[in-house]
């Protein structure tokens, strides 16, 4: 096992990793920017090194600074957390060249999964279902019609050169295709200087389902079941749960086996998450893979009883999955996580500043992962996540009741938080019944009355 590990991250995940290290008897080194001088991850590490000024590019994303800190502290390994440098293949390579173990997959695998088209091809080869689409750019309207026939309406045309909704058109029938094709082409050419389009099957009301995997460095891969993360706003997840009510035991087992085979073939190592969209017929389609630990990993930990971060450390230290995991993995109960953000619950504007009161809920089946505390400061330079509130119950009903109880006892003053927004979601009949898809938040927020918006000065399109 490693003697010393540097955590190349900040906030709640840095503390999470530190906790796992401490419990394994590993000495910990924290790095921090000047804005995080009084952070908990700094306070509770065995050693801490300031690596730069507040801006991420000058500190947490500054590879030479992080590596230099690892060298002067003489660490054995670096855990990159999530975000920041965690999926940066260059960083993983520099670690390797500097003789520091990077806790994650090899750089080549990270790079493969980072290239969307290559990842799709790798999955397709392994018979993992992928979203049907054109093989690359579509040159003419005629070609587009052919592809649409093959893929099946509705389809979406997307700009090769960009995103953000520009150069995108949803086509629901052959009649409207020519006009929409030309419109998308023109818009893309205008926005990105390149009008080239490709096509994908369009799912009207998709759900976001993802599978957690662990792979050791001896060719063994295991699936730790799925999570559903359909409650999102502008592609940012707000609520995650495990398991998904939509995934049948048969689907879970079959897809789990297929994924393990695929990832073994590409030489995957350590923790990872494979993301899918599910259509109205409960068909899953691969969209991408995240080659790191994820924010919402605690819900999987709750239903399986496995400490995923410890597993990462042990895998990187060379242990086999057979030593880390029980012979038969089982799911118990239902778990839900709410991401508590430092932002206005209605306007979603970020709320940096000093926390004056911080009461964290506890009790049976409640877990809070946070690096904040009373009199702590939320700096304006980083993402707004300040706490993850996770509950576990014997079933989804108990989990919901537990979350409502815990949310009502989570008191944060001095900054705005999304706690009241989460409470409103949990009171929603559709959410409670498990009837939602990735458009849920759009519809939910549109229900806000004009009066409510006027009260907080929100424009109609800002919901």
């Amino acid at each position, binding site marked *: 096992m490693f003697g010393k590990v540097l955590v190349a991250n900040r906030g709640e995940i840095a503390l999470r990793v530190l906790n796992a290290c401490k419990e394994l008897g590993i000495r910990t080194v924290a790095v921090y920017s000047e804005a995080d001088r009084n952070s908990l991850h700094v*306070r509770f590490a065995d050693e801490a090194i300031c690596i730069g000024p507040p801006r991420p590019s000058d500190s947490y994303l500054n590879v030479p600074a992080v590596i230099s800190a690892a060298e002067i502290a003489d660490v054995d390994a670096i855990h990159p957390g999530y975000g920041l440098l965690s999926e940066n293949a260059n960083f993983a390579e520099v670690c390797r060249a500097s003789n520091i173990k990077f806790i994650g997959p090899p750089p080549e695998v990270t790079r493969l999964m980072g290239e969307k088209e290559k990842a799709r091809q790798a999955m397709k080869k392994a018979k993992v279902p992928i979203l049907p689409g054109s093989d690359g750019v579509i040159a003419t309207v005629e070609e587009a019609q052919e592809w649409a026939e093959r893929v099946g309406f509705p389809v979406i045309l997307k700009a090769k050169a960009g995103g953000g909704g520009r150069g995108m058109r949803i086509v629901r029938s052959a009649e409207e295709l020519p006009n929409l094709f030309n419109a998308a082409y023109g818009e893309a050419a205008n926005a990105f200087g390149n009008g080239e389009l490709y096509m994908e099957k369009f799912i009207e009301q998709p759900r976001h389902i993802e599978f957690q995997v662990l792979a050791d460095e001896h060719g063994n891969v295991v699936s730790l079941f799925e999570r559903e993360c359909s409650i999102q706003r502008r592609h940012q997840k707000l609520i995650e749960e495990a398991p998904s009510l939509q995934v049948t035991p048969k689907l879970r087992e079959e897809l789990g086996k297929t994924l393990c085979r695929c990832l073994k073939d590409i030489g995957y190592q350590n923790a990872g998450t494979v993301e899918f969209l599910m259509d109205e017929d409960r068909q899953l389609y691969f969209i991408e893979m995240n080659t790191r630990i994820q924010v919402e990993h605690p819900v999987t930990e709750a239903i399986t009883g496995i400490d995923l971060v410890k597993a990462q450390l042990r895998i990187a230290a060379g242990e086999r999955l057979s030593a880390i995991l029980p012979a038969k993995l089982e799911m118990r109960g239902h778990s839900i996580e709410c991401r508590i953000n430092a932002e206005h619950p209605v306007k979603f504007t970020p709320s940096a500043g000093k926390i004056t009161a911080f009461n964290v809920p506890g009790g049976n089946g409640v877990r809070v992962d946070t690096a904040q505390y009373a009199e702590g400061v939320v700096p304006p330079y980083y993402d707004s996540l300040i706490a993850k509130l996770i509950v576990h119950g014997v079933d989804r009903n108990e989990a919901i009741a537990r979350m409502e109880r815990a949310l009502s006892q989570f008191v944060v003053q001095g900054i705005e938080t999304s706690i009241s927004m989460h409470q409103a979601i949990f009171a929603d009949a559709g959410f409670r019944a498990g009837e939602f898809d990735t458009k849920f938040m759009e519809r939910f927020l549109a229900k806000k009355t004009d009066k409510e918006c006027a009260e907080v000065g929100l424009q109609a399109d800002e919901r």
Partner: protein
Amino acid sequence: MNPLNPEDIEDLKQLIEFLKENQVAEFELERGDVRIRLKFSGPEVPGNGVSDLASLLAGARAVPAHPAAQSAAAPEAAAPATADPNEGLHILKSPMVGTFYGSPSPGASPFVGPGDHVAKGQVICIVEAMKLMNEIETDAAGEIVKCFVTNGQPIEFGQPLFSIRES
């Protein structure tokens, strides 16, 4: 309640002065039907009126800091009202994490020493990071007063390296 007469008010003023001089924090007096209670706000101490955890953190961060930071006089740490030896001096802080070297190569004489005059932009030390020797230039001209670190010492971003009396 009977209003205080002028003599009583004088007495009270003198009492307050006396209490202040002798740094009494709280005082209570009952005489007849008069009751006086005085409470003085204390001097600004780090952590005053703030939870223990925060004061532990906001106060002197002498705690599990990397040895590099501990040996330097971290100026941001709450230094209670003692005279600041660096007052009026310009502090050159490290722009990067790495290992400090005072000379261009092992065995060579140091770039600068106390008393030396330096021009702005002059190289006064090296910080090694990832096997690269980075020459560090002063951002001020003047006389080197003190060097806070030793040859071969690991240092962090922002760590004070030299104090310079600007001229």
